[in-house]
């Protein structure tokens, strides 16, 4: 029996080393790209687009469910976006709180008849409102159908060729939309989806729907999520985007070519990972058509969002994410290792299966063997020691590297003390935060077998102060 666990331990060591090396490979790929553009004067590079008639108009879709605390400040922040032509559509997905009432009151909205184009089926639309102050702000009041259904309703009502999906609790930097649209405009539509970085707003000073001062939160749970976002966005997504095999554009902030999304069938209501599922379906469509169109991630445009501050909410978020990942991979299993889908089928899908999804299982077994090795001689203590070190390497050291990459390139956090705090918290990841995540992600795999889509149960405090 002990030899079985020994073999298992070495398999886990090999897996973690392989995954770590893949992260390091991604890091090198990402580093070159981000470093090249790090000193670019972003204002200069986008100011031409601001007055340029070639800039495509964009419909901004804000799906909201029980977002009475943050929805109006999100819309206010969208109003101040530097972008030549835009419309804002808030979709109240049958909220039980006063989401619609807040919108109607704040923007003096009146009910209007509207000839909605039914591109994609959605739950019943109860009413459509339009602001009397800003006629390009509209509100859809609809029956509850989930986030995907809300976005589909927004797509139906939108008038412009591109739409930006943004969460009801997020704040976009003033030039964020312009920067996100830049690759689409410059590629003449060859880029069909772009996503920007999502950053955690907890701890920052936000007034008048704008991030005034960037600071770190006190809560270690939120600090660790900041590190985690660096790791996911700066290392993973950038490198995958560089290879045109990126499977996730965050649901919190992304711009999509509407025609392509409609062609793909819109957002899937049967999964909780509707953002990833749509991107995979778009890749599938592009590969089946042998199209050269691309999906891109841009690290600089930043969308600030509120992160969970309690373990309960964080747990439910992670279970939902993991479940969404499994559902997406399962519903597109046909693409897995299928040469017809090129690098997405041969590289990206297996990578997401073995590293992003099953990684949690491997790590879970790894933690079990470490404890079993040291406490119950389940495996040789030396093997347990190696496993322990590799786990630290895979967890803490890679995350700490992500913090350093952020500082090397974007350096959004202004003080040296921010860097120090983030780095040292990153080093602690393996010892408390990662085991929690691993456990919840394993629970998420089980949760995937119990159906029933719903919105996340985020307890909002509101990020605007």
């Amino acid at each position: 029996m002990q030899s079985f666990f020994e073999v298992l331990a070495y398999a886990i060591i090999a897996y973690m080393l392989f995954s770590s090396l893949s992260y390091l490979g991604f890091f090198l790929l990402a580093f070159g790209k981000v470093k090249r553009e790090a000193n670019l004067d972003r204002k200069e590079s986008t100011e031409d687009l601001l007055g340029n008639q070639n800039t495509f108009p964009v419909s901004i879709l804000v799906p909201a469910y029980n977002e009475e605390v943050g929805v109006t400040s999100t819309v206010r922040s969208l109003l101040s976006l530097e972008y030549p032509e835009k419309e804002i559509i808030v979709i109240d997905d049958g909220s039980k709180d006063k989401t619609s009432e807040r919108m109607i009151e704040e923007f003096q909205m009146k009910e209007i008849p509207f000839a909605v184009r039914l591109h994609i089926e959605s739950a019943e639309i109860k009413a459509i409102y339009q602001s009397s102050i800003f006629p390009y702000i509209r509100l859809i009041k609809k029956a509850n159908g989930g986030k995907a259904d809300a976005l589909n309703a927004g797509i139906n009502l939108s008038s412009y060729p591109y739409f930006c999906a943004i969460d009801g609790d997020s704040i976009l930097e003033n030039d964020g939309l312009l920067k996100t649209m830049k690759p689409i405009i410059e590629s003449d539509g060859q880029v069909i989806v772009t996503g920007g970085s999502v950053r955690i707003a907890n701890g920052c000073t936000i007034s008048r729907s704008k991030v005034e001062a960037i600071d770190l939160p006190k809560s270690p749970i939120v600090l660790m999520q900041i590190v985690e976002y660096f790791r996911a966005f700066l290392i993973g997504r950038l490198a995958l985007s560089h290879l045109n095999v990126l499977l996730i554009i965050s649901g919190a902030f992304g711009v999509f070519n509407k025609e392509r999304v409609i062609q793909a069938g819109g957002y899937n209501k049967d999964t909780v990972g509707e953002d990833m599922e749509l991107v995979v379906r778009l890749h599938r469509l592009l590969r089946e058509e042998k199209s050269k169109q691309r999906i891109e991630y841009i690290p600089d445009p930043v969308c600030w969002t509120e992160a969970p501050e309690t373990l309960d909410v964080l747990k439910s978020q992670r279970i939902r994410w993991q479940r969404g990942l499994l559902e997406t991979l399962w519903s597109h299993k046909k693409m897995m290792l299928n040469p017809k889908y090129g690098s997405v089928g041969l590289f990206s899908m297996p990578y997401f299966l073995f590293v992003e999804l099953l990684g949690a299982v491997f790590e879970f077994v790894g933690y079990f063997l470490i404890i079993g090795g040291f406490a119950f001689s389940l495996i040789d203590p030396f093997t347990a020691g190696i496993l322990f070190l590799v786990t630290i390497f895979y967890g803490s050291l890679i995350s700490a590297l992500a913090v350093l990459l952020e500082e090397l390139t974007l350096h959004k956090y202004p003080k040296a003390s921010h860097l120090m705090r983030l780095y040292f918290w990153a080093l602690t990841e393996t010892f408390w935060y990662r085991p929690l995540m691993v456990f919840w992600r394993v629970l998420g795999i089980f949760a995937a077998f119990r159906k029933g889509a719903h919105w996340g149960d985020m307890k909002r405090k509101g990020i605007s102060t």
Partner: protein
Amino acid sequence: MSLHFFWILSLSLLLGQLVLLLALAWRKEKMSAKEQAITQQYEALIDSFSSYMLDPSDDRFLREIQNSTHKIVVLERLLNGYVAVTKGSVASPLVTKLSEDLLAAHYAKQLARKDWASRMNTLYYIEDFHITSLKPLLKERIDKSSILDQETQQLLRTLASLNEPATISVLARYPDAPVRLYTDVFQRLEEQTRMEELDAALRNEIQNNALKHAAVSYIGRAGLIAFLPRIEAELKTGEAEMRIQALKAILHMQYLTDPGLLLSFLQSQSWTERMYASRIAGKLQLSRFKEVLSVLLGDPVWWVRYSAAEALLQFSDGDILLTHLSADHPDRFARDMAAQWKSSLLGSET
């Protein structure tokens, strides 16, 4: 592999990271101090800069900027602020003088740097400050480029802003050059050069359709009425894309010598042509087409219905027409569209 190996590997990685961390923290402190110094110097120079720009005889600024330890960055910020807020400042002789005297030599060096971002920033600033002395250097670089990447595109924009007519012929070397880039170049050229280049593009002697489309599109957006007869002539061309570009241009120009030309487009097989023709009929308030527009309100294509309703709304009695059509049009979708556009008056009424 032994435990020792992993210990050494992990510790050396940790050590390496710690060294990097300290270096980054030190860099951050240094950058922060530098930024603070730049801001202080910028604020200290704003007054003398403003005085100099208003009255060049007050040359305190010229002496003070020489003493600045961050002369280049501070001047860039001052000039950037000035060109961003002052109308007609791009052609300001003072901006040109300051940038030629204090920045041109530095920019010439920057253009030769390996760092891509520095070269790009330099190209943006040369355009903003209109540094014509660097034109030969930029031409040399554009002649050497062989791919239309981001840098070459900006090089073309910058050269066009310095009124270099050869930019169009350089751009024409790239068969996949986007229409957007051609219009960017037209926009930046000085008026006389621009008119000559537009004229040549419409003649299309070099058989470059992207260039011709861009010229038609630019003429429309800029409202260059002098070209109207030639744009109208394009309505009769056999090339569908060119007809659409011409319709778009007429829509922007809001002028048509013979409104009768529009009828065949309102009845076209192509929905795009019906859509643009409807929009033109509305923009030009061509009452004779009210009836056709009422029919198009029930068109099978959503965009045509949308544009027809929008067009009807442009007429002085548009709201009455739409009220009537929203109740009595035989087509249900037409009634919905009319109702929607009627309600779009909501924002403008208050």
